[in-house]
């Protein structure tokens, strides 16, 4: 009995130290989530104004732009999956990957080939482990996405979209250049941040642009003014649309970051709660074992005394 008592005590100790870790992670995630939300809010005015501008151009000019034109026979689609860099966030990464798989399956049924782009180490690990091809992946910023990174991803996807069919688009990122196969559609799968308690993996089609899926639609009463375009509607659109795409990708990353932290906080909270439960259970068992040990010892002593007494009485 004494052995198992020691074992239980060791288990209690290790569970307690694990609890300390999960508790710390929970607190860290909770404090970062506020910052992530603030960042998402700070980026909102830019996205809102950009959306306004894009809808203005789209409404008042009949410009045909490659980024908004539906290809007649889409054959190839790119899917950008936004996952996390680190684990310990519950089902966060696996649910977004599952959503991506569902989308890829749907696209394949429609007869399109799927090119995968990954953001986040967890997604990379998933695809390399299964030895599935990934066109390009980025990582190292999932909990604090910067606009630069989002712009880099956006440029790659736009290059892929703009490239002629069957050819490669070239993207230069810093010092290196890489090639991306041409696609007819671009989708993004990310986790939408609904609230601290609910995050929902969702897939949107980024390109060709459907004008305009706005985060905030202007009121019906607020008529868009008749804009003059300088130098011309085409040129305004030329610069506007890539920025719009990049801003959407940035927005997706910000949402994903907030969701990741929320998921981690939740996962760590339940881990801490579970550790509490376990400690309680182990303590009970350990106490039982301790008491059983004591009882046994007493009965052994009593038994020994009795035996001695009996032996002594027999001799007399």
């Amino acid at each position, binding site marked *: 009995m004494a052995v198992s008592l020691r074992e239980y005590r060791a288990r209690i100790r290790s569970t307690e130290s694990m609890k300390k870790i999960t508790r710390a992670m929970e607190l860290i995630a909770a404090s970062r989530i506020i910052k992530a939300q603030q960042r998402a809010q*700070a980026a909102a005015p830019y996205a809102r104004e950009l959306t306004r501008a894009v809808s203005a151009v789209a409404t008042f000019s009949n410009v045909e732009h490659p980024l908004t034109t539906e290809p007649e026979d889409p054959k190839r689609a790119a899917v950008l999956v936004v996952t996390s860099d680190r684990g310990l966030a519950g089902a966060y990464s696996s649910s977004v990957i599952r959503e991506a798989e569902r989308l890829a399956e749907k696209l394949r049924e429609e007869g399109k080939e799927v090119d995968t782009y990954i953001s986040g180490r967890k997604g990379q690990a998933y695809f390399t482990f299964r030895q599935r091809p990934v066109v390009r992946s980025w990582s190292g910023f999932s909990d604090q996405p910067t606009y630069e990174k989002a712009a880099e991803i956006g440029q790659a996807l736009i290059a892929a979209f703009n490239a002629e069919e069957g050819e490669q688009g070239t993207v230069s990122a810093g010092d290196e250049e890489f090639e991306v196969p041409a696609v007819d559609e671009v989708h993004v799968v990310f986790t939408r941040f609904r609230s601290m308690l609910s995050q929902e993996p969702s897939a949107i089609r980024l390109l060709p642009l459907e004008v305009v899926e706005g985060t905030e639609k202007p009121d019906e009463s607020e008529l868009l003014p008749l804009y003059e375009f*300088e130098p011309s509607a085409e*040129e305004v659109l030329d610069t506007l649309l890539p920025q719009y795409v990049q801003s959407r990708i940035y927005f997706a990353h910000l949402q994903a970051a907030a969701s990741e932290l929320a998921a981690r906080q939740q996962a760590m909270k339940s881990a801490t709660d579970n550790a509490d439960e376990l400690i309680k259970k182990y303590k009970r068992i350990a106490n039982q074992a301790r008491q059983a040990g004591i009882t046994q010892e007493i009965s052994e002593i009593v038994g020994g005394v009795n035996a001695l007494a009996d032996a002594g009485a027999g001799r007399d």
Partner: protein
Amino acid sequence: MADTNLQVELVAADRLVWSGEAKQVTARTVEGDLGVLPGHAPLLSVLVPGVVDVQTADGETWAAAVDTGFLSVADNRVSILSEYAQLSHEIDLEKARQDLERAREAGEDDDEALAHVRSAEARIRAAERESSSRAR
């Protein structure tokens, strides 16, 4: 029109840089410098890296360096959107000068290097305007 002011918003990709009322906004577009006064016709224009000057309602002026972006004017509302925007007092002049040196060395024939040169120049101009207006 003297009593109406422009509602100005200068927005970068990751934050709202400045918002408030202003009497005049000057920015550099692809077509050249453009001044906006209250009552301006609705306009959407493309900005090149440069300096945005704003005369606020209480008579102060400030400058900001912006990268490529947009200027939209409608109903006395001016929105300046740029991926990167910095108010002049936030600019690190030394760093901007170093960036300029480095970008110049990279060669001016390269489009990307040229864009870096432009944005560094814009930052220096904005910062210098700030210091000269303070001297006055």
